[in-house]
């Protein structure tokens, strides 16, 4: 254990420049989202109907719209900055929800085996064989849209991936001598799972979670794009783009600004995730 920790520390010292760049980018986007009220030049929901669909750099009544306005004359820069909150928030929270649900179920299945295992793992099979986006569209039809419901929908449709990993890892770990020992010493299942099993399977779970984080951002924007996401007048990058799609010829910036942001965000997450996987998973390590 300590030997590999040492190796990781060694490798961390040789961080490639691309990873540093995307980390800075990611940090910048997160900061933008957190400090949106300070960064955004205007109220993201304030409409000026006389300044609709204006190009970047347009000035109206002493207000300059640096990246233009949308179809209700709202400042696109401010909306994009606030949109980061929704896109990141939904993705982060739904990853947390699905990790918690998925990992708990996976550990239970791997620890107790028997019927618990059968039921949980068959449920995983079922969930995995319904396309996630269809399941999400179906669930939105029942729950209705909105920020928290979106988190719930995405979180509850994506947990099986974590369960599979947590299950397989728990099976391996549960045979380790020190865990057998603490079981004999009379420690309860919950205690063993959380204190001994969880820390040992955290690495692989982290790999899944980073990959899922990127996917969640795309799923949220996909749902918003279909008109099933966040409630107006709030907006996520996906929903701004879905509005802008109609104005592609007249006002390309409505799609372009959040589109570029969305791409940079997912790109950063993916590059970072790849690097993290190379560090944590010796099998795919190649450099």
């Amino acid at each position, binding site marked *: 254990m300590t030997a590999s920790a040492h190796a990781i520390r060694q490798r961390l010292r040789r961080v490639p420049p691309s990873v540093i760049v995307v980390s800075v980018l990611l940090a910048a986007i997160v900061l933008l989202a957190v400090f949106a009220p300070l960064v955004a030049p205007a109220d993201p929901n304030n409409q000026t109907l006389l300044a609709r669909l204006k190009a970047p750099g347009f000035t109206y009544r002493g207000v300059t719209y640096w990246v233009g306005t949308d*179809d209700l004359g709202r400042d696109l820069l401010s909306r994009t900055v606030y949109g980061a909150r929704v896109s990141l928030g939904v993705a982060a929270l739904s990853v947390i929800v699905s990790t918690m649900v998925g990992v708990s179920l996976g550990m239970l299945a791997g620890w107790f085996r028997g019927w618990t295992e059968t039921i949980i793992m068959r449920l995983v099979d079922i969930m995995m064989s319904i396309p996630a986006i269809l399941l999400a569209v179906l669930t939105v039809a029942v729950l209705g849209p909105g920020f928290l419901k979106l988190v719930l929908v995405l979180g509850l449709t994506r947990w099986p991936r974590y369960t599979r990993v947590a299950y397989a890892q728990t099976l391996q770990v549960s045979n380790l001598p020190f865990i057998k020992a603490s079981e004999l010493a009379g420690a309860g299942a919950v205690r063993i799972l959380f204190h001994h099993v969880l820390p040992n399977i955290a690495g692989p779970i982290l790999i899944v979670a980073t990959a899922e984080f990127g996917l969640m951002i795309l799923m949220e924007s996909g749902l918003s794009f279909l008109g099933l996401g966040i409630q107006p*007048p709030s907006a996520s990058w996906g929903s701004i783009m879905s509005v802008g799609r109609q104005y592609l010829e007249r006002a390309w910036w409505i799609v372009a600004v959040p589109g570029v942001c969305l791409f940079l965000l997912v790109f950063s997450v993916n590059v970072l995730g790849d690097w993290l996987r190379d560090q944590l998973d010796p099998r795919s390590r190649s450099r």
Partner: protein
Amino acid sequence: MKPGLAFIASLALALMASTAIAQTKETLTIDLPNDVATLDPHLQWNTDSYTVYRNIFDNLLTRDSGGKIVPQIATEWTYENDTTITFKIRADVTFQDGSKLTAEDVAFSINRIIDPALKSPQLSQFDQIATAEVVDPTTVKVTTKSPYPALLAQLVKLSIVPKAYVEKVGDQDFNLHPVGSGPYKMADWKKGIQTELEAYDNYWRGEPPFEKVVFRAVPDVSTRIADLKTGKADLIRDVPPDQASTIESDSTKLLTGETERVGYLYLNAEAGPTKDVRVRQAIAYAIDKQGLVDALLEGYGKPINVVGAEPIFGYTEAVEGYPYDPQKAAELVKAAGAEGATVEFLTSPSYPRALVEAIQQMVNEVGLNVTISSSDQATFLKRRQGDAENAGGMAFGAWSCACQDADGIIFPLFRSGSIWAKYKNEKYDALVDQARAILDEGKRKELYTQAYEVLREDVPGLGLYQVYALYGAAKNLQWTPSANEAMFVMDMSWQH
């Protein structure tokens, strides 16, 4: 790209374009948002379906370009008494399978659509009819349950189907292989993709203008517009007003039709903060209709004072509207003690989002707190038509009965007991009930003016604007859109 390559490419494009034009002389291609749901005209009544099947079938009656009800399959009709009306049927009409259209087919069509066994969603439009009987081969007698002035307006929507054929092939097969007496017969139906029609050469009104008509399903507006511009489509429906300016070009033009459809705002008079009439009036004062029309509809619409537009019977200019007066609105909100009260604005992706958001801001500015709840259409309808308590405070709608009669608008919207009404006023109910049950036009008109006056006072709903239907068309297509948004290919032609 190298200049040489660009030249070759543009040459190739020009060649392709010229062959495309040669082909369109024979074929008219129309882009609709969706494919037909059913081609059996007695099943689904939604715009995309009837736009197609009304070209395959004839209706008992129709409307001329001025909106007047005129003969089609029926040549004349007489009221025997308030509940009985006889129709004379044309003798020179044949169905596309060669058989003759007779009174038998007309009576069969009426009785078929009101038969519960068909499970027709359109039943409610015809349920005032008790029965239809054949008197002789060219005469049909229709009996209504009570005097029903809107009967003729409803029969404009009744397609005549061939009795012998339907009985022979059965309902399910008839839906897949419909046979009518209209100008076009079904050639090929690729479900969800396109419906291809072919001219019926023996059509009784003369030769149809195009050999083939293709209705394609293109859900995305931008794609429909792109299709028009690239010459893949000759006519497209449902152009949003703020895309209108992109339609005009060397090869394409914009067609506008001032329709009977009204954009209106529903206000819940039975629950929530809007239960107080002052709050509803405040909302009426808070909305700048002209501003909405100018900015969001780019002028393609006309502000109105009542929930009804000029082409409908019963429309009146006598009722005053609410002027845009945010100050007065704010005072009314204050007087009602509703400052900061939360009003839920129900909507769905089927309604114009920008308009909903603009109204939200206007109402927020006078002191209310409007929150938008956007769900899918099924959920929206369930709430909007359900209990008043759960039906939100306001909602946007765009209503047309395609019957050009106030009865088709304000009766279903505001008569207590109707699924849409979250409002009860006995005086109003009496007025619209009476107007529905008499045939005297002058008297009906007066009743509707009074009813509109009551609605102005109580504001259970607010007329916003008359909708202009916008179509994009190839430059050489000749067609005048009608108030009821019907698209009869018979009325279209190539310009020479």
